[in-house]
């Protein structure tokens, strides 16, 4: 066996178990196909409702632009918002909590796999399906509505921002999931965190509509990278330099969150006792 093929075999045997976890997650997600697909389509309804609401607001205000945002930009913003919600991955802490509550964590530790990657891979199918069924069609709808011609630089920026946002959410999710070791039940914390993330990440309104001081402070936090910055970059609401600065802020937060997560996980994993000890 040549060195190259031996390397390939090693890589395959390393990746295969995680792909199996992904595959099981995919089957679980698709166990109730119609219900799952219909629930995903609620994103289209939500985006549609936002369009009606903002049309009424612009009509009554009798203006073409609110704080520099035109009505058509607002339409597209909401389409993008629901498209980019793919980065808000709720599954990591949910899986960790479940593993701790029902004792699956002990089983997971007997496998020759890294637990954090297992957790991530089991939630990935949801995101992959959301991306395929919702994100791509909504982005196409946004492109048709906005007549925006995306340059390769913009596409690259948006993809990078989404990846940074996705990583931030996974790390925050993992940190919350670790709390389950101490608290066992973390549903309240999870839901509170996601609500705050959505609000502060521009998931309800474009952040430029917030008071300027609040906006400036928010731009220093990791939250805008999740939804607002990618959508604003796509629409040209923020300049390339602001987008790049936001990316560096996001990378800084990834480094901080990663560091905290690694330190915390090293300490927490020694204290893990699943139900039954």
């Amino acid at each position, binding site marked *: 066996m040549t060195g190259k093929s031996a390397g390939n075999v090693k890589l395959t045997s390393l990746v295969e178990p995680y792909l199996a976890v992904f595959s099981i997650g995919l089957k679980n997600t698709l166990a109730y196909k119609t219900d799952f697909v*219909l*629930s995903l389509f*609620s994103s289209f309804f*939500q985006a549609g409702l936002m369009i009606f609401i903002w049309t009424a*607001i612009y009509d*009554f*205000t009798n203006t073409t632009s609110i704080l520099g945002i035109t009505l058509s930009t607002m339409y597209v913003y909401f389409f993008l918002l629901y498209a980019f919600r793919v980065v808000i991955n709720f599954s990591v802490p949910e899986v960790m909590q479940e593993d701790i509550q029902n004792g699956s964590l002990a089983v997971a530790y007997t496998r020759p796999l890294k637990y954090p990657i297992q957790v991530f891979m089991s939630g990935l199918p949801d995101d992959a399906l959301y991306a395929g069924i919702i994100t791509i069609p909504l982005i196409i709808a946004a492109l048709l509505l906005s007549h925006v011609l995306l340059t390769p630089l913009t596409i690259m920026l948006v993809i990078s921002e989404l990846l940074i946002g996705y990583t931030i959410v996974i790390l925050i999710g993992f940190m919350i999931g670790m709390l389950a070791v101490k608290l066992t039940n973390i549903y309240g914390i999870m839901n509170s965190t996601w609500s705050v993330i959505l*609000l502060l990440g521009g998931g309800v309104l474009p952040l430029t509509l917030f008071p300027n001081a609040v906006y400036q402070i928010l731009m220093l936090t990791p939250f805008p990278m999740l939804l607002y910055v990618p959508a604003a970059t796509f629409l040209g609401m923020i300049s390339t330099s602001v987008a790049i600065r936001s990316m560096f802020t996001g990378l800084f937060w990834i480094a901080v969150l990663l560091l905290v997560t690694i330190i915390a996980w090293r300490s927490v994993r020694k204290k893990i006792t699943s139900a039954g000890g």
Partner: protein
Amino acid sequence: MNMKANNLFYFMRLLLWSNFYQVRSFFTYRLQSLIWFIYSGFTSLYALITITIIYNVSKGIAGWDYFQILALSSTITIFMNLIYTLVNPWSLVQEMRHGNLDTWLMRPYGIVTILLSTFGSFTSLAGVISGVAIFIYALYHVSFSVMSLFAFLLLFSLGSVAMVLFIVMLSILSYHLFRSANFTSKLLGVLSSAGSYPLVIYGPILAMVFTVALPIGIASYYPTETLFGRINPSLYLAIIFLEVVVTMVSYKAINVMMRHYTSGGG
């Protein structure tokens, strides 16, 4: 079996007993329970922040000032949290799938009494309370007559009963069709968003949909319009008639579907 009827007395009795044990088990995780309460209360603030920002940067929605919209939005917050306090569609379908509903069905109560008193999440009461607080705050800043307040309370109460039964019906239908309740939960989210704003902004077709087909309007928009004296007597009576029809149809449908209910395992 001497099946006790779906009347208010038995409903309250079962609701109090089942919640007593729910509360006890919930407070097993004390910190968690505190955070749940904060979260449930926070859901009201969410709408408050959104509406405040909208009215800060624009004139808002025609015919509705800031406090009127706040009243409308808090009405839907109260109603949505009321639903979750009584019955969480997702939990209900989970319990049906796992066969846990069966043990409840052995008890001598009516099916609607059981469904509405055992599968709720009482933490949502915090959302009801914070919704009421925001509603009172909004009312303090708008003018209305005592008469219209009573008319509002009647319409809202009947509308809430109708919509709660309607949601239970949808959840059971969802179980029959998909064995899952993701869609119903998401639909509730859509209805919550839709009901937070005046139905007229959605155009005549969607306004009709949210009045008759997915009648969220009967629990929020029409009662709030009544409060501000914008509903004429004939429309008021028509809405009450609609609420009664939705209640009766949902009640009947729940009973019919539950007669054909088979849990996980048959």
